[in-house]
């Protein structure tokens, strides 16, 4: 695999005409073959960053390089390497999915014969082949999202950028989409994902950057980030809850209802002593799970911490 990073973002800045500073010098690197999560709350600057990478937004400063090719200086060459699945539906809804895909390939200079073969391949892989000759406006929301993935694959990009591709998509289709994208990633395509479904990011991505108010507040491996979470809450489904709960140092145990208990404890705390105490009190645990997605908990903490920190997010200028 190439040693050139798939993406280098260097001090990228964007100030819109209305004065809003969407990116305040963002820098990050994505290695080739990575499955990279770019997370952040609404308005954090994710879509602006993706817009600059895909040349839909003009940057105010800095540069980005896709496999060593500058987006600013060699736009055409850089765009050949990128596939974009945008947040909003952006195809002509009166065209047929097959034509949308073939035309997309044409825009990349791919001859029609090859384009037609690829359109068939990707529409089949994304289970849209039976709709290939229907008007796109007749497709369901999930189908439209899958069509945008098929379209983005037409130039067989080395870097696939997915901007909230599963928004409003049901769980079954979401899973099939991730299966497809994981396969693409396993075959060597670098994937950058933004999503509000943090469990997706946790399951799929190896590295992560969290952006808030136009700055990167965290950029690390998923494993290292999750290890920062020092407290976890477990939910226990139990056969029955007695009147009195066992008291255990370092564990906040509480009753949720007749058949559910919650235990909040440090990540380093062992579970054996808790199970021993529950058993001693005659409580039979039938199943257990994490109360919230771990990444979600960290995400909220990082973003909230950033907001409370003085001197950030334009507070200096306002003071």
């Amino acid at each position, binding site marked *: 695999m190439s040693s050139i990073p798939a993406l280098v973002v260097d001090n990228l800045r964007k100030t819109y005409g209305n004065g809003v500073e969407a990116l305040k010098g963002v820098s990050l690197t994505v290695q080739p073959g990575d499955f990279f999560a770019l997370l952040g709350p609404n308005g954090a600057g994710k879509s602006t960053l993706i817009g600059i990478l895909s040349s839909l937004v003009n940057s105010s400063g800095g540069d980005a390089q896709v496999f060593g090719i500058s987006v600013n200086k060699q736009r055409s060459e850089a765009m050949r390497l990128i596939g974009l699945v*945008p947040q909003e539906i952006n195809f002509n*809804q009166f065209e047929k999915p097959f034509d949308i895909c073939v035309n997309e390939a044409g*825009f990349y200079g791919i001859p029609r014969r090859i384009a037609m073969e690829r359109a068939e391949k990707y529409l089949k892989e994304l289970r849209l082949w039976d709709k290939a000759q229907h008007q796109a406006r007749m497709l369901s929301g999930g189908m439209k999202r899958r069509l945008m993935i098929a379209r983005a694959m037409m130039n067989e990009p080395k870097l696939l950028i997915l901007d909230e591709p599963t928004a409003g998509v049901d769980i079954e289709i979401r899973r099939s989409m991730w299966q497809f994208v994981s396969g693409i990633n396993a075959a060597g395509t670098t994937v950058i994902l933004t999503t509000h479904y943090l469990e997706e990011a946790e399951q799929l991505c190896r590295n992560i950057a969290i952006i808030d108010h136009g700055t990167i507040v965290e950029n690390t491996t998923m494993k290292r980030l999750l290890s920062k979470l020092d407290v976890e809450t477990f939910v226990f489904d139990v056969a029955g809850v007695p009147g009195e709960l066992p008291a255990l140092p370092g564990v906040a145990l509480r009753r949720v209802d007749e058949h559910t208990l919650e235990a909040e404890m440090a990540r380093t705390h062992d579970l054996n002593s808790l199970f021993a105490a529950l058993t001693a009190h005659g409580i039979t645990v039938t199943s257990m799970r994490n109360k919230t997605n771990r990444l979600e908990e960290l995400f909220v903490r990082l973003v909230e911490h950033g907001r409370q920190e003085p001197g950030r997010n334009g507070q200096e200028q306002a003071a």
Partner: protein
Amino acid sequence: MSNASANLVALSTIVRREIVRILRIWTQTLIPPAITMTLYFVIFGKLIGSRIGSIEHGYTYMQYLAPGLVMMSIIMNSYGNISSSFFGAKFSRAVEEMLVSPMPNWVILTGYVAGAVARGLSVGALVLGIALFFTSLHVAHPLITFASVLLGSVIFSLAGFVNAVYAKKFDDIALVPTFILTPLTYLGGVFYSVKMLSEPWQAISRINPILYMVNAFRYGVLGISDVNVGVAFAVMLFFVLALGAFGLQLLKRGVGLRS
């Protein structure tokens, strides 16, 4: 694949897509102008024209009117095609498909202009066919006829593109044809010779660029013109270059397209 062949594929993709669009909505793109022009021929050419008699060089009013109406159809449809198609792509955000691709700006502009010219010329051919039901025409200068049609169509395709780039809502692409294009066309010598006007109206008419297009085409078909044909072609070439450069500049700056 070389850049040149990739650009050629991209260009043919846009042109093909535009032609498919024109044919898909043929009841909106091809039939209405044919019906409108038939009415012009019946009312102005046949009913009123028969009372006017010969208008210039022994040509009947119907023969004089036909080239003007053909050119008017070409102008209106070239303009209407590109402004609605490109603005539609902007409105639906489908234009982003092209903006994120490696295609250079000139390919996007040329592709859309070629699509608009295809519609302009198709409608022009239809209207010419209808004209031949009412009168006989013998093309005096085929090369001038073709060149004037092509340049006129390109000019108004480029103008329609500029309109679409600046338009923010569908109303904005209807304003220019209604308040600028139609009056200029009607006052551009389609229905009459500007020689019939007294001064200063004759001089004022010569500011109207459509006058040069209509007369260049009329010269090509009938061999008569109110203006010098060389000047007419110089004016048309000037507008092609100026509007082409302006369109490319708008795409480069991303006006109305990129943030």
